[in-house]
């Protein structure tokens, strides 16, 4: 996991709103600037929303890189297709994308639909769908006991990219994925140097949407997509079995994972979790709003057909190395000693979790003091109380 978030202000208002919003305590304030702990960040984007001064932003790649390749393909997520509610508007959307400079624009709905059919066939024990990088990050960081329950399938963008690499194997091919959220910006070689991915560039939809919309015009070109794949981006639109549990907000998702960890959801076969409102339609880098997009999807439902996926099972799997590095981990005794040390410091702190110290709360302060990075006197409340 790598953070895609960047702090951009020279002068901060020091409202600490981002620090309070961060569920991973990945942010702190040092010398009047926000510092991001890039290994703790799960790319949820909450800090971006929390800052009223646009001080935090997600870094995406740009279309300038189109010129680096001989042939370029644009991967189109279903949430973007949902800007249209009739098929010929979908066709003009794809034509508009090509006018940006792509040689080809292809819908991810085929892959999504194939994954959907596979997921529904799961009849073993409780599994968690693995298409949302934020859910994957959450599970790995905060609910590690559930990591084995993640389905083994790769991201739709990666599966599609692998297919394209096979198809155009002798060409200098550039694959660009249009992303709906901060978490997806991590799933490409650039701009975050994650070379283990097949997709080359992660593009933010909001960054290019104005250009797309100025390119929109009538077209004679045809377009194809799989309706099941499209609907999959929106939980409330999916046909669903009783044994599939759907949720679509960050808090409900963490609540569901918490219950699953207690073994309370074992009657379900699949947890389809979308941290965003209305699923990926409500992703923070999507242009427009999820309500309209959802209605559009419902209208598109009548226009298209289902396509049986042709990709072999083997190629649907996520084979990137998991960073499950337990070597160099402390012994239990050392861990417990550290915990007790932190606890003792924690008990000396006021416990207000006010973040005035520039850290995510008293517990984090205690951790930092234990590590020698801060002192008790750095707690603003303690200092004030001692003066009185």
């Amino acid at each position, binding site marked *: 996991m790598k953070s895609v978030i960047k702090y951009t202000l020279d002068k901060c208002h020091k409202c600490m709103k981002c620090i309070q919003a961060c569920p991973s305590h990945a942010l702190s304030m040092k010398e009047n600037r926000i510092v991001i702990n890039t290994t703790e960040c799960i790319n949820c984007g909450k800090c971006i929303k929390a800052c009223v001064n646009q001080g935090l932003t997600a870094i995406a790649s740009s279309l300038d890189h189109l010129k680096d390749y001989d042939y370029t393909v644009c991967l189109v997520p279903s949430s973007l297709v949902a800007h249209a509610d009739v098929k010929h508007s979908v066709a003009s959307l794809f034509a508009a994308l090509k006018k940006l400079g792509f040689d080809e624009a292809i819908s991810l709905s085929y892959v999504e639909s194939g994954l959907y059919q596979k997921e529904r066939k799961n009849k073993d024990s409780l599994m968690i769908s693995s298409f949302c990088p934020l859910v994957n990050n959450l599970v790995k960081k905060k609910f*590690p*006991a559930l990591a084995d329950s993640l389905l083994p399938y790769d991201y739709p963008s990666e599966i599609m990219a692998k297919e394209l690499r096979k198809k155009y194997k002798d060409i200098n091919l550039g694959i660009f994925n249009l992303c709906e959220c901060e978490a997806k910006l991590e799933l490409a070689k650039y701009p975050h140097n994650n070379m283990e991915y097949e997709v080359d560039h992660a593009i933010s939809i909001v960054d290019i949407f104005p250009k797309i919309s100025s390119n929109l015009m009538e077209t004679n070109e045809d377009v194809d997509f799989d309706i099941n794949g499209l609907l999959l981006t929106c939980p409330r639109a999916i046909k669903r079995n009783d044994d599939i549990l759907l949720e679509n907000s960050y808090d409900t998702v963490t609540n569901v994972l*918490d219950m699953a960890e*207690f*073994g309370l959801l074992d009657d379900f076969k699949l947890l389809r979790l979308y941290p965003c409102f209305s699923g990926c339609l409500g992703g923070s880098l999507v242009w427009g709003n999820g309500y309209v997009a959802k209605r559009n999807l419902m209208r598109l439902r009548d226009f298209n057909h289902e396509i049986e996926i042709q990709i072999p099972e083997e190629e649907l799997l996520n084979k990137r190395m998991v960073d499950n590095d337990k070597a160099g981990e402390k012994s*239990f*005794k050392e861990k*417990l000693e550290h915990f007790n040390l932190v606890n003792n410091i924690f008990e000396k702190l006021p416990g207000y979790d006010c973040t005035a110290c520039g850290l995510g709360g008293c517990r984090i302060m205690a951790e930092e003091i234990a590590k020698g990075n801060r002192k008790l006197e750095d707690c603003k409340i303690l200092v004030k109380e001692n003066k009185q």
Partner: protein
Amino acid sequence: MLTKKYLVKEKDYVNAGKVSSLIKKELKTIGVDESVIRKIAIASYEAEINMIIHANGGEIIFSIDDEGVITLVFADTGPGIPNIELAMTPGWSTASDDARQMGFGAGMGLVNIKRYSDTFDLKTSQEGTTITLGFKVI
């Protein structure tokens, strides 16, 4: 050695599972292996719910010693379990109707608790029931 004591109130369904959540959080902060956390979470949740449903609440004591043994004691002042053999039969439940409506009390309680813990001890009398669970971390 680390010891923490938590109170569980009678029929406090709204807060059901809160102590187990706190314990789970502590275990994650310490960095206990996830497979052990899972076992403790499931056993602890069941036992906590049992205290709320069947007994009049009580206290939960959570401790870890330096050797890596985690002990959970669930001590209630309820009516005791009249027939332990029956209570240890899979599928058996005496959950009250209001508990059932909340979705608790599948009746797997004690069997599950025993299955997920490394050591299991149960003492019961008319003055109350004490369940002591042990888990080995390393």
